[in-house]
Structure formats: structure tokens, C-alpha cells
């Protein structure tokens, strides 16, 4: 503090006033968010500990049944306990498909981001616009565009039958594979965006130095480029993995009700299942998994140093 600074009491009065103004400005947004985002989450947590009513909704009687049923089931005849194989297989499918989607997005996204980052400066924004446009396009429309391509009466099958290569349409839609294709297609921009951000800043004099020291292309990629863009790879992976795990639209449209993922299992509890507490417990479980993934990301991003995230 210099001598010309106002006396302490004056500063605190001004600060108090600034603080009051700040909270007044924030209040409307926070009220809406509390009402339609944070608050309902807490109510969901409460619901997960209640008893399901017969036709949807709950009876206000606390029980741990819903949480028990997330992973376990009790045999209706002899009361023996066992793992809930139906739920576990859906959880496993969700995790497996999300990991595969992440890998698929890296396979297509990494070279694409690299390609864009190595274009002349004036061209890069245009190429990135081509990535951003699908990103802001309705997820349902994009999923539907892929459905039209692969469904039995769709473009690929019609073309193959017309050329005489096949007599019967190949069943691609409503399989795990079609969900994977749809999710890679839908979430690819989420991988390219952070990858490009880290590659654009790549210092190619380091790459040049590598070549000067007789490194092969593979070695330059593995030892120089990859370590430098690792934060981008991690960010992209989280950005793809998290929404994949909670995906609802793509597995519903692509899986046709046979290949459920967690999101569809949750919906089922509010529809035919009529077990709201179980649905609530399943959502909180999904949220917990996502939060762990995000926290792991924040931790690694912190270690990699500032500038990414």
C-alpha cells in the first residue's frame, strides 16, 4: 500500500458496496440455475432413497432399495442375492462403447487437427469452421443423417444391392456397431477442437531439430509432437468420453431399443419401468462416474501446467 491509498475503513465500505452490487447482478442467473439445474439434482438424490409408487412417482418412505438395485438383485423366489447382470451388462456396454468412441475420435481427429494446424494461417479458420458447423448442428439431425446412410432401405444398402454385390440388405442399424459409428460421428468435433488448439501452438522448430538429429517421422511424432499436444489429447478424450457415457439420443435412434446404454436404462425407469427411485439412483451413479472423470482431467491438466483446459 502506498501513502496515497484511502484509509482502510473507506476501502472496506467501497468493497462491501461492490460485493453487494456483484451479488445483486448474479442473483437472477443463480436463482434460475438453482431452480432448474442445481436444485432438481438434490431432489433427485432424495428421490433415489424413497419407495417407488405403483404408477410412477414415489411414496415418501425412505429405503435403500433403489441403490441396492443399481448393481444387485434379489431372487424373487428364494431371496438370494446376486449381481444384477442386466444392469452390469448395460454399464459395461456404455463404458466399452464410450472408450471405443474416444479411441475412434482420436484416430480420425488427430490427423485432421494436425492437417488443419499445418495449413497456411489464413486457411485455418475456414477449415475449423467446417468442424464447428457440425458441432452446432442438431445432434438428432446428424444422427438421423447417418441412419439414412446405413439403414436397410438406406443409401449404402441400396447402392450395394443395385450393383449386385448383395441380394439382401446388410443389417447395420440397431447394432452396437451402429451406435459406435453414430457416436464417433456426432462427437468427433469435440475431439478436434481442443486438439487443434494445442497443435496450433506447436513449435515446429522443435520438430525440425528432431529431424536434424536424424529422427524418423515416427520418432518425431512419438517423441516430440505427442508429448507437446498431450494436454489437447486428454482434453479431447474427456470431452468425448463424458457425453458418450451419458448419451441418450444416439443409442436410442441407432440401437433401436435393443442395445441400451445407461441413458436409455435411466429413461426406462421413468417410462415402462415405473421405478423413479431406481432411475434417480442410476442418474446419480452416472453423474458420479462423470464427476470422477472430470476431476481426473482437472488434476492432469493442473500438472501439465497452465494454458490448457
Amino acid at each position, binding site marked *: 500500500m502506498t501513502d496515497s491509498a484511502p484509509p482502510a475503513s473507506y476501502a472496506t465500505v467501497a468493497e462491501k458496496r*461492490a460485493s453487494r452490487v456483484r451479488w445483486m447482478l448474479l442473483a437472477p442467473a443463480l436463482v434460475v440455475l438453482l431452480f432448474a439445474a442445481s436444485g432438481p439434482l438434490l431432489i433427485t438424490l432424495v428421490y433415489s432413497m424413497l419407495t417407488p409408487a405403483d404408477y410412477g412417482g414415489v411414496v415418501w418412505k425412505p429405503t435403500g432399495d433403489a441403490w441396492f438395485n443399481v448393481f444387485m438383485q434379489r431372487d424373487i423366489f428364494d431371496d438370494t442375492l446376486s449381481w444384477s447382470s442386466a444392469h452390469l451388462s448395460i454399464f459395461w456396454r456404455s463404458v466399452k462403447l464410450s472408450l471405443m468412441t474416444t479411441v475412434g475420435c482420436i484416430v480420425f481427429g488427430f490427423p485432421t487437427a494436425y492437417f488443419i494446424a499445418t495449413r497456411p494461417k489464413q486457411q485455418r479458420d475456414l477449415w475449423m469452421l467446417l468442424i464447428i458447423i457440425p458441432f*452446432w448442428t442438431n445432434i438428432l439431425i446428424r444422427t438421423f443423417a447417418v441412419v439414412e446412410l446405413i439403414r436397410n432401405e438406406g*443409401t449404402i444398402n441400396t447402392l450395394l444391392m443395385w450393383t449386385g454385390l448383395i441380394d439382401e440388405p446388410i443389417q447395420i442399424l440397431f447394432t452396437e456397431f451402429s451406435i459406435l459409428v453414430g457416436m464417433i460421428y456426432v462427437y468427433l468435433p469435440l475431439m478436434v477442437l481442443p486438439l487443434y488448439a494445442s497443435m496450433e501452438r506447436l513449435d515446429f522448430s522443435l520438430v525440425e531439430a528432431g529431424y536434424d538429429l536424424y529422427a524418423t517421422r515416427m520418432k518425431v511424432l512419438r517423441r516430440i509432437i505427442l508429448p507437446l499436444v498431450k494436454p489437447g489429447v486428454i482434453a479431447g478424450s474427456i470431452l468425448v468420453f463424458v457425453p458418450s457415457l451419458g448419451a441418450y439420443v444416439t443409442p436410442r435412434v441407432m440401437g433401436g431399443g435393443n442395445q441400451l446404454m445407461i441413458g436409455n436404462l435411466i429413461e426406462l425407469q421413468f417410462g415402462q419401468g415405473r421405478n423413479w427411485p431406481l432411475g434417480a439412483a442410476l442418474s446419480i451413479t452416472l453423474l458420479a462416474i462423470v464427476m470422477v472423470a472430470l476431476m481426473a482431467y482437472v488434476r492432469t491438466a493442473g500438472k501439465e501446467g497452465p494454458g490448457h483446459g
Partner: protein
Amino acid sequence: MAKRFQIQQMPGFRTIAVVTFVLLYMPIFLLVIYSFNAGTSIAIWEGFSWRWYVSAWDNQQVQEATIRSLVIAFWASAISTTLAVLAALATTRTRKFKGQAAVFAMINQPLMVPEIVTAVALLIFFAMIKVATGYTGLMYLVIAHTAFCIPFAYLPIRARLIGMDLALEQAAADLYAPPFRVFTRITLPQLWPGILAGAMLAFVISLDDVVITEFVKSAGQDTLPTYMLGQLRRVVTPEVNAISTVLLGISVTMVVAFTALSKLKT
């Protein structure tokens, strides 16, 4: 030009990139092309026609869903942008304050929590209110959309605000302009591109929402996306392509305008 050793080049990367762009756009192009198909197929071309646009236009359900979508998107983007401007003014260009982390967590919550979780939470909460009040109108959807639009409106506004020079506002204040005057005459005109960008982003996000709308809507409150989701179970005609193409057109226009706006110099 003699073939030189290109240090930036990686074998196969260009090919994969080109393939990626083709794969990214081919389904969308086909979707648009077949919306003009004269036949009922989505894969066999039978000549050009506006038939499916006319049939979508005449479809009463589509009309109602369109109007509902636009009404919700208008109010959600208008309200969320207003709230986001206030929130951005409160959280930008200040020192760290108590509760800052919690505020950011709340604002960004819709971006981090999976949509299906929010959707289910809103279904539960609004079901309670519906039972208690008996009101089943459009307000639920407007409020739900407003909430998840707030971070999308907030981010570009905040980015613009961070880039703005404080000197002009300080000069105005030094010349005895009251705070509100400083805001309307100095801050707002400079902030305008950010506000517009945020509003457009919020509008597109609201217009495109499927999951939360699907869970929050009462009977007979379909928006265009939920109407389309319902149609996908049936035999699909190019009418869905026509609706998709129109929605696609709106999104692309908004994104291009948004990109242009965010490039405007502060």
C-alpha cells in the same frame, strides 16, 4: 518445384483428414439432397421436387411444433442472455471474490452434468410442481431451456468483456457519469457483439435441444426435435429430411454469423 523435405508433413495424415471431412459432410449432404426427392424413398432418386417441403409446411403438427420451438427459443435466449450479461458484469474484471468457485460451478453445471441427468432431475422436480399447482403450460420448458442456455450465452459475453479496455469506463466515471450511464453509453455499445453472439448461441442451443425437452414437455408440447424423434420410429419419408434441412439452414447461418461476430475487434 522440386520435392523438398516437408518438416510438417506426416505420412497418411492428409489422407485421413480428407476422408474425415468427406465422412463428416457426406451424410449431411445426402440428407439435404433427398429432401428434394420427388419419390418417397430416402435412397432412390426420382427427380427434383419441393413436395416434401410443401407437405411439411401443410402438416399441422409440424406447424405447431415449429411455432412452439421458436417461442421457447426466443424467450429462453432473451432471458438467458439478459441474465448472462448481468452475471458476466459481476464476475469479470474483478478481483477474486468469496464464493467465486461456487458461482462458476453453478453457471457451468449445464455443461458438465450429462443432459439425461438434468432431464430426469427436471422431470422429477416439475412433476412435483405440476401436481401442486396444476399448471402444465409452456413455462416449464422456457425455464428449463433458459437454465441450460445461460452458460452458452455467458461464455462469449464474458470473453468480450475480458477483452474490453477499462480506461473508457474509468474516463466516463471521472467525468461524473453515474454508473448506469457509464453502462448504457460506454460498456453496452462495446459489449454488443458479444451479447448478440451469446444470444444467437443460446437460440441455436435451445432450438436443437432434444433430451431435456423430451423429459420436461407435457402431453401435446412437442418441439420440432422431439416431433422428429417421435417420427423416426415410423416409416420415414423425406418430409423429415425437409424439416432437418430447414433446421440445418438456421444453425449454419447462426454459426457463421456467430463466428463473424466473435472476430469483431474490441
